[in-house]
């Protein structure tokens, strides 16, 4: 039988109630591990965010009449294109990241060289504002765009001519996306509540498939498998199964205002690439970003921002998440990258010259510590040193029955839980009042300060209120004699009055609610 009694047991504070659901799942930990940086002072709302498909994945944000490229390392604008006549609505990188297409509300689509910022092509055919422009995933020659003229156009970029005009939408076309598996399939969403799937090989300009979202569609994306489509409109994000004939898989209704933009993000372990799972990230005018796990049909994380959000982008290397708000602020969430590796590599390169180790001599201090940090090898039998029980200062004093010193030392520390635990232990030893009696003025001041701070905290009040009363009774003479202590008492009085006021108002509320509950209970 083990003998538990021979070791000293330190005092322990009372346990706190655990929340029924764990506060942080690993996934929400992952999402909150993105360190948020703000890029303020963009003029007006950020209409779209697009990441370059090539490393190091710079991203383009469109706002007002300009398009800015940001470098992912420094998060500073690397170049700005502002040769637009109207508000830029959308931008899209080509698959090799060399060209970028941008559309503006004048109906013009421009294609720029990313490096030189020179406009290479101007695609002019839309008569009304263009709302989106998109390069296919693996096709370098074509573009798709849609706009307020309810037309979706398929462009040949080199010749600046629309190959196809896809008619069918009855209202503004707001968004569209190419399938990740085929460069001939694209999907568009419109304010006429429908999402249409187009095949650019079919020349009769009829949509292949059509689903009804039920609300004006703000954004539509293909999910990475190519078989599923996510649409955003109204307060809902819906997942559709295209292969299954346009069946709705799930409708996520957790935003309280219109969902403005969605994108695909990937969650999982940082290291293993295969461990990552795809999520739908959605932002809305309610200022929330939600992470939706469409495999389990569950919201796994949700994050609040101080402004209505307009657009979201997620970098292909999972290192960055950028959200644009309606007041021109970019919220960039950046994951810590392992730059240390690179640096250490550099250092080893530079330190090549000093490779030979210095011979240890007894003149160094390290000489006497050599070999102590040695790790045990596989076959070694490790003899563990018996673990030393670490005792806090107050525990050591309690062990020696020096009760007053223990109380003073724990009052010096800043942890109220420990103070209450020590007080409870002193109660159990019938020594608390003796301690209070023996405190000198300075220590009494310490105690009074503690009481002032924590007497009204509900967790401790049951013990501390009684104690406060007793302390005042016992030490009234000393308190009268010292100005500092009088100040403490004044503070204490104030906090007690505050608490009484809170209690009164709570009772009033209870008085209002309880008849209602009674009535509700009767039914």
């Amino acid at each position, binding site marked *: 039988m083990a003998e538990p009694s021979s070791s*000293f047991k330190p005092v322990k504070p009372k346990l706190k109630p655990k929340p029924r659901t764990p506060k942080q799942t690993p996934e929400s930990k992952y999402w909150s591990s993105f360190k948020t940086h703000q890029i303020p002072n963009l003029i007006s709302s950020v209409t779209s965010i697009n990441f370059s498909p090539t490393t190091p994945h710079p991203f383009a944000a469109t706002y007002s009449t300009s398009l800015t490229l940001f470098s992912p390392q420094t998060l500073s604008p690397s170049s700005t294109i502002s040769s637009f006549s109207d508000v830029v609505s959308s931008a899209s990188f080509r698959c090799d990241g060399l060209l970028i297409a941008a559309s503006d509300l004048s109906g013009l689509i421009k294609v720029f060289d990313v490096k030189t910022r020179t406009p290479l092509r101007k695609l002019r055919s839309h008569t009304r504002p263009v709302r989106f422009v998109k390069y296919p995933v693996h096709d370098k020659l074509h573009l798709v765009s849609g706009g307020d003229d309810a037309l979706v156009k398929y462009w040949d970029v080199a010749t600046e001519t629309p190959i196809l005009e896809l008619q069918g939408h009855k209202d503004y076309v707001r968004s569209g996306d190419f399938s990740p598996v085929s460069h001939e399939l694209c999907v568009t969403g419109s304010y006429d509540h429908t999402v249409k799937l187009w095949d650019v090989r079919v020349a009769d300009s009829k949509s292949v498939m059509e689903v009804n979202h039920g609300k004006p569609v703000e954004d539509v994306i293909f999910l990475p498998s190519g078989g599923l489509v996510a649409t955003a409109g109204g307060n809902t994000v819906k997942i559709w199964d295209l292969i299954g004939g346009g069946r709705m898989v799930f409708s996520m209704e957790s935003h309280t205002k219109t969902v403005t933009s969605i994108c695909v993000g990937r969650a999982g372990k940082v290291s293993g690439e295969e461990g990552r799972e795809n999520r739908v990230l959605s932002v809305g005018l309610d200022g929330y970003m939600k992470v939706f796990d469409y495999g389990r049909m569950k919201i796994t994380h949700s994050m609040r921002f101080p402004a209505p959000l307009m657009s979201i982008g997620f970098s292909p290397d999972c290192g960055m998440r950028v959200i644009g708000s309606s007041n021109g602020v970019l919220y960039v969430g950046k994951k810590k990258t392992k730059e240390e590796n690179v640096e250490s590599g550099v250092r080893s390169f530079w330190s090549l010259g000093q490779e030979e180790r210095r011979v240890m001599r007894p003149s160094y201090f390290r000489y006497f510590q050599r070999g102590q940090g040695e790790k045990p090898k596989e076959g070694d039998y490790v003899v563990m040193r018996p673990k030393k029980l670490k005792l806090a200062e107050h525990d050591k004093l309690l062990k020696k029955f020096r009760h007053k010193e223990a109380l003073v030392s724990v009052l010096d520390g800043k942890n109220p839980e420990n103070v209450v635990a020590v007080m409870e232990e002193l*109660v159990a030893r019938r020594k608390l009042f003796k301690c209070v009696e023996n405190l000198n003025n300075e220590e009494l001041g310490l105690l009074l300060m503690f009481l002032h701070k924590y007497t009204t905290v509900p967790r401790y009040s049951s013990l501390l209120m009684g104690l406060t009363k007793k302390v005042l009774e016992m030490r009234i003479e000393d308190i009268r004699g010292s100005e500092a202590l009088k100040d403490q008492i004044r503070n204490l009085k104030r906090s007690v009055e505050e608490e009484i006021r809170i209690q009164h108002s709570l009772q009033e509320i209870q008085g209002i609610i309880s008849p209602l509950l009674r009535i509700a209970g009767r039914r």
Partner: protein
Amino acid sequence: MKTGGKSYVSSPPAFSNDGKRLLVCTGNTVSIFSTSTGLQIASLEGHTAPVTSVIVVPASSPASKILCCCWTASLDGSIRHWDFSVPDLMKKVDIKMPIFSMVIPSLLVQPVENDEKPSDLFAYLSVEDTIEQENRPKASRGQIRKCNLTASRLIGGLILKETPTPEFVAVSSVGKFIGIRNKRKLHIWMVPEKDSGRSVSKKIALHHTKNLTVLAFHPSKRIVAAGDVTGRILVWRGFGYQTFSVSDELVSGRLVDKEEERPGVRGNDDADSCSTWHWHSAEVNVLFFSSDGAYLYSGGKEGVLVVWQLDTGKKKFLPRIGSPLLYYTDSPDPTLSSISCADNQIHILKMPSMEILNSISGIKLPHSLPGIYEGLYSGFAFDYSSGLVALCTENYGIQFYSLFNDRGIYEVQVCERNHQPADEITVVVTFVALSQDGSMMSTVEAKLPEEGIGGLVCLKFWALGSENKKFSLSTVIYEPHRDAGISAVAFHPTRNVAVSSSYGGDFKLWVCNDEIQEKGLMLQNSGWACLAVGAYKKKPMTAAAFSCDGSVLAVAAETVITLWDPNKNVLVAVIGETLTPIVTLSFAGNSEYLVSVSRGSKPQLSIWSMSKLSLSWSYKLHIEAVACAVNLSSFAVLALLPESSICMESEPSFQGRDGIILVFNAMDPVPVSTWSVKKAKGGGVAFLQGYTSSLKQNNSDGNAQQELLVYINSDREYILFDPYGNEANELGMSQQDGLVEFEETEKFGYASIYGELPKLNLTRNQTSLVPSVPSERPWESIFSGSSHNLPPLTKVCSAFLESLMEKRTAVVE
């Protein structure tokens, strides 16, 4: 029938000569424990009253170390000589006086020459004089006498000393001196070297101003140490040089009788000096010199073993033993010694380092409870299926004690706090309850307030671990009913639901929600949470019980019983009422009857019918405990006999018995059977599931599902018996049934290396062979059959020889 739960610390234990066994006085028997495992090996049975001394005959030469002889003395007035390896009674000396202590100094003297004829063996006894009790009621009752063990008689007329009460006799380790303490004096005799019957040894007295409690002799020098009630240790050096001086070895210069040369010695006491050490804050109970004489061990109520360096007075400590120390015993093996603690534990110490190697844990004794918790405290709960009893211990723990094996299994620390045995009790585990399948436990602990602040009641739920079979903490609930105390906790028989009732006027239903997270990574998060709260007219809720199927919850609101539906938390009915508050509620098995017990000035045992919602029948009895059989409609109660009847009835059958166990059928107010018991106040009864393997009597019946009744008395001694069997109705705790387990603790040879050989083979052969041999010559057919089926010859041999022997006896008959 099986008894157990004896005190291991009623008198000092003794080590065997090889240090591998420890002889412990346990009631009327001496139990022999292995020091390496702490398990019981054998027991010496024969005394008819508690054994008070056990003395192992020391080995005079290394060859005789295997000799296992001991002398025991008992309150039944007999001294017995045993060979405890067998175990076998060799000699019995009857002196017809209760012996409280015995020493045999001549055993300790090393024999100088062997050619001399061995002299008689003399024992010095501390006996109680029972004969003259009537004539002189105030006279001294304790006597120190001498007994010739070789001649088996008390030396008549020789009374060394009379003391008010029988005293413990101490002897020096070489057998030169014996001594006793007597109030504020020590009396020391020198044992004559050639001890003969009539020789009156010389005596000195040493005086002190406080009552002395214990004394010890130095192994080689003339030093005696004594402890007093205030915690002081007095060390007299050079005592008795004047009185005990033998003429031819007179030491000159020692006889100088000057006051200033004898510091600390009082009056004309015969000692050179007396020094005082004071560390203990209370009475010193243990004093012992180490065998080399360099150290003095002392211990007392604080539960700290102090080692004093005799020359310098420097101290070393073994703190936090957790209970007052009673005895310190050292062994012939210098690395082993034992300390006996008041909580019925014997710790085996590894000596120079003073580590606790092993503990022989007896059943923990009940402890006193302060104030409000006094009356309603049972302090134990029984595990129906595994035959364990869970006992609240003084050091804020729960001890699990196996009733079938009569040993402590393990302890659970309920409250993480350092226990100081000498302090006032301020934290106490007031209640323990086990669920019916034994997988859940709940404990209630109370911290008593200091001048009205800092009180705390804490309800804890524990879950049985699946692999180590130990309880681990699941949920802690601080102040479950505000600051009111909890009167009862009961578990639902089938579901993970419990109820706790409080004096604050409400009861709460707790439910255990096992949340298994979807991912395998997440730990199983299970906890108890409050499901419902109920109250009845703001009356204090004093008891609670679930019915057998769990469909009804009965909660006693002082004098009435409220019946609730635990699923909907709806009051179903109120029945009552009794004259005084109900303290215990229990459903009688699977029947429709509810048993309630109320105590106080008008005690009552009432049986309520659930179908009629009315009183069925009742008795005016003071009931101490109720136990209900699980599957039958019978129940057992432990009733205290009214004091008047104890006094009036001077029948021999009732002497010392203050309680009675009654087994009722719930339908019938006439008890099925009754037993009278001793020390019933504070005792308990319970039904347990019978184990055929552990009780041989049941084995013969072949009735596996038999229920046993266990009675545990206020000293936590218990008896297990079959309430329906036709055994004798006499059930005193003095009865002994020869059912002590013999456990072979050490394996030898092959078994020690490779473990036990499977015995399956042998038994199968026996069963298949014996019934298939109707003929009178079974040895003929025992080797029949093909050779590959035949077990090895070594195994068949015993069966073969057995069959031959059976034949012989048959012929004789």
